[in-house]
């Protein structure tokens, strides 16, 4: 049978969570509002399946993040959502400007799993168990992806100035 969904109540209950995720990544109120609309439509359609498991919030985190990063990828621009200041051992990086450039390049070129591990760890500041609930990655995989990302950033920072992006 069809599932009864009170869209207004659903929106008033969860809309702000979707919007916040979108705004964090897209950094534009208008774009975030559009993205929120798209993600909310999918959420309403899936709600009957996810609500029973208390998994609505994790679903939103994952879906909003994927949607927004895909938007950025498709537009071929990326303003890093990861702040260099948020990375551990940042004082090992030569400069913040280089680090931001490195993050821009690296995040743009990384696979989704590494991107998610980095984003949810440093921007959303979630625990590894929470990231597992959202992405399905085990804590060991998350740690591995974070380590690989840090290594890439460090490698980029060691390159002679004037090279790279």
């Amino acid at each position, binding site marked *: 049978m*069809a*599932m*009864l969904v009170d869209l207004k109540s659903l929106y*008033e209950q*969860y809309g*702000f*969570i979707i919007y916040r995720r979108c705004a964090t990544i897209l950094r534009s109120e208008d774009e975030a509002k559009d993205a929120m609309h798209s993600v909310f*439509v999918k959420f309403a*359609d899936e709600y*009957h399946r996810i609500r029973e498991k208390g998994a609505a919030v994790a679903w939103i985190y994952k879906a909003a993040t994927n949607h927004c990063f895909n938007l950025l990828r498709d537009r071929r621009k990326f303003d890093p959502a990861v702040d260099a200041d948020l990375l551990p051992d940042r004082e090992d990086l030569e400069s913040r400007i280089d680090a931001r450039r490195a993050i821009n390049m690296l995040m743009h070129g990384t696979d989704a799993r590494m991107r998610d591990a980095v984003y949810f760890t440093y921007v959303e500041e979630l625990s590894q168990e929470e990231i597992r609930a959202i992405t399905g990655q085990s804590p060991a995989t998350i740690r591995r992806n974070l380590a690989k990302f840090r290594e890439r950033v460090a490698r980029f920072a060691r390159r002679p100035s004037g090279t790279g992006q």
Partner: protein
Amino acid sequence: METHPVTTLELMSYAVNNCGDADRDRIRRHAETCPACASRLKAIAAERADFLARFPYAAVLGNRSGGEVVRRAPRTPLYALAAGLLVAVTAGWFAMQHFTETTARIKGDVSIAVYVKAADGKIEQRADNRYHPGEQIQIAYSTGEADRLILVSVDDSGRMTTYYPAIGDTSIAIEKGRGLPLPNSIVLDSYIGHELMVAVFSVSVLQLADVKERIAAAQRASGDLSALRLSAPDTWTVRTVLIIKTER
């Protein structure tokens, strides 16, 4: 590494009332003694209020009334709000054509009934309870004392669909009266087979999980939806209607 007993996701799930009973109690107890989490809950509430003030439902998703039906059928295209694929269905068509008495005194007469809008637009009840995909049904109820309701359907395979509460995990408050339509009608999807509508009336708040567990247990015991008998406390009043979905 020291970890906080309540995670960000748990706190957020608690704030939007999307967690199980045990988690809800645990988080509530924790928040009562943790200033950081109590503060975060306040911040979440403030953020939601600010969001709704800036982006009210009507402005973002159009002037759609609350209570819309999302058809859930395999391979059915996604119902996009902006494209108007979601069907806004209200009980208006039913209420205009059928009587309702909110002042009638009803004691011990708790019931549900299924009405359908036939192809010619007339509202009818079908004695054989046979319906077809795409038809629009409206459930009406009567209750004299019980003022809380959970409505769940279960099909032959044990799959359950929760109609009320639409959000949250406890029974909804309902008006007392005779022949009152529930707020929203239902468009039947493409599933073919039997579905048992189970309405649980009570005067106290019931937990959805409890009702669903009893339904599942009753189905396992009976093996046949038509013979399903819910084991329930005396404080519950259970009414069922077996829907038979067939192809036209």
